[in-house]
């Protein structure tokens, strides 16, 4: 009943608001832009559908019973209250289904834990409330923090389309190359999460966590801190820009040069 009610409400609300507003269609997990993120999406959909099927069967039986086996229909209640074979059946069947889900999940998990053959190594450090990126084996390192103006946050001006998911300096990485991220924190716990890359891991002081990714498509991917880290936890986004390898090389060379000249200036 309430499902139907909900549905009706959703439909009326959807009709009132404009469908063009993207929010209404953001119903599902992103497929992402890496092989692994697509596998994760596949796993998510697989288990979702399994749950839907089980749900339809169980709730179906229940609602059938609610409709047909009611006192007002003048039925006399049955008295059965035990059946070892039934109990056995509904212990074994879910167990088998679970194994069917565990196998592909484990396969994906093993792939996620394979950090070998990484070509680019980037160390990410969480601070209250910004991120630091260091390209290992180069001298490039910078901080990246929220660039949304306070006026927008405090409703004094209109919010732009990337409200709360824009930063002053984006993390720039190449596509089609294996990148390994090393993750730590300087103060409290943070978590570095970019949904499109299916990457999420905690940044923990005293620990270095690892994760790796190969991005298939160039583009700008946005993420957020996902572990409560204090007052501005909601205000430390992540923006990662994946570019073609050549563009990345150029950017890195320029960044290194700029850094060297900065250091030189200071040394003078």
């Amino acid at each position: 009943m309430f499902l139907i009610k909900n549905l009706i409400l959703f439909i009326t609300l959807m009709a009132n608001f404009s469908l063009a507003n993207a929010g209404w269609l953001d119903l599902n997990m992103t497929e992402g832009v890496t092989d692994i993120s697509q596998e994760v999406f596949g796993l998510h959909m697989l288990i979702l559908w399994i749950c839907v099927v089980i749900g339809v069967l169980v709730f179906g039986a229940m609602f059938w019973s609610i409709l047909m086996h009611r006192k007002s229909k003048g039925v006399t209640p049955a008295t059965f209250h035990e059946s070892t074979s039934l109990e056995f059946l509904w212990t074994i069947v879910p167990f088998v289904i679970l194994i069917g889900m565990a196998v592909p999940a484990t396969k994906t998990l093993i792939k996620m834990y394979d950090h070998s053959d990484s070509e680019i190594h980037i160390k990410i450090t969480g601070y209250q409330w910004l991120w630091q990126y260091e390209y290992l084996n180069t001298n490039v390192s910078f901080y990246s923090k929220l660039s949304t103006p306070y006026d927008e946050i405090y409703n004094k001006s209109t919010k732009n389309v990337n409200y709360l998911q824009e930063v002053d300096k984006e993390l720039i990485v190449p596509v089609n190359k294996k990148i390994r991220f090393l993750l730590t924190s300087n103060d409290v716990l943070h978590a570095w999460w970019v949904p499109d890359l299916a990457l999420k891991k905690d940044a923990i002081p005293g620990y270095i966590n690892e994760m790796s990714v190969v991005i298939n498509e160039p583009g700008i991917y946005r993420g957020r801190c996902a572990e409560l880290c204090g007052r501005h936890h909601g205000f430390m986004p992540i923006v990662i820009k994946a570019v073609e390898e050549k563009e990345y090389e150029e950017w890195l060379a320029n960044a290194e040069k700029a850094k060297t000249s900065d250091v030189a200036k200071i040394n003078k």
Partner: protein
Amino acid sequence: MSSVVKDTHHDEHPSGIMRWITTTNHKDIGTLYLWFAMIMFFIGGLMALVIRSELFQPGLQFVDPQFFNSMTTMHALVMIFGVVMPAFTGLANWMIPIMIGGPDMALPRMNNWSFWIMPFAFSMLLSTLWMDGGAPAGGWTLYPPLSLQTGDAFPFLIFAIHFMGLSSIMGAINIVATILNMRAPGMTLMKMPLFVWTWLITAFLLIAVMPVLAGGVTMLLTDKFFGTSFFNAAGGGDPVMFQHIFWFFGHPEVYILILPSFGVVSAIIPTFARKPLFGYSSMVYATASIAFLSFIVWAHHMFTVGMPLAGEVFFMFATMLIAVPTGVKVFNWVTTMWKGAMTFETPMLFAIGFIVMFTIGGFSGLMLAITPADFQYHDTYFVVAHFHYVLVPGSIFAIMAACYFWLPKWTGNMYPETLGKIHFWLSTFFVNLTFFPMHFVGLAGMPRRIPDYSLQFADYNMIASIGAFGFGFAQLIFLYLIIKTIKGGSKATDQVWEGAEGLEWTLSSPPPYHSFSTPPVIK
């Protein structure tokens, strides 16, 4: 039996407020627990409404982000330790002695203490809202190092948790002693109602894990004030170890919050289906297996901390296994309804609502168990939707079902049925309106515990907020209905419900107030 022989006059029970302060009667204490839970339910609910108001639209409108974090933290602590646990303890106090045919709880005086600690603990916790540095804002999970950044409130928070823990341990020990030692002749363990069984197992879990929480929060305290480095990375400690400690307590705690509701639903469904509970013994074994599994799945709350692969795989498998005994329970309930002769009074509606929505929460729980997918779900609104589905239309609905089910027994009056049904339908509609859209925003990428969000999450957050206000106001009906039933109403029979079975229904629904006025004449 303290005073064997005493002078003649009646044993004057204190009246008024002193009656409630000094009472050792299990019914009085049960009532106290339930009212305490009710008050806390509205306080915690107000906090939720602060959260939902702020999240109604993107941007910061009403509260400071720090206060927002305090609200999420306090909302969780109040709802878990102040509402669900006391409510179930209250139900246990009221019903367990009656269900097993015992005279009272085994340790009546300790029962009194374990209740009266609670108001002190919660005054202490709520007083932190007015302290320098604000109330605790590091999340109810108290993860260091963030929780160590709490201001003056910190020691109050820790001692409040100690007192809550002490109260629940004393309650649990009392319940265990009662169930084991106070059963009537012939009430063997496998004849006990499932509510008693689930509470026995719950109490076992409580006793096993509460010291872990107490030790964990004490180590936080010594880290902050006495220079130890249990969790301080700079001093050679391990911040992740706190998470292990916390969730080693926390996961059994989750089942502490849900197992008694299984007992309640297992009492209600057969009553209104007029058919015995299907698979009584498998229900007992399923509950015991869930309890056992709860000790070996804690790290599924921490899939993203960077455990070794073997750990992730182990905790994924163990977590998925929980679906099996939980499934058995749901199948048993559905089969109990099958070919019954059902009627749909308010308790039955809440019980059916429980099964449906708890199962939805169970499904999302199963999805969360899949480690690779959990990396996408972890710490998002998907998780928020999941645990609210098992806690609100799960535990809270079961508590409400229990209240409607036993209220006629407690008060001797029937509650107004139509109003009860209105309460059910409004609650169900709004609870889904609140929490179902949270699945969507979670999958779309909205993290939990954020006071402000980017624009693509705006629409469903608005709906959730509308739902939350609706749900909150619908609960006023519940409050009104209970007060009305206590004050009067059509008289309930002893059996109250046509299909009711069990010792509690053979007792009279309270006879009218009658005092012993004429002193007897000695011959």
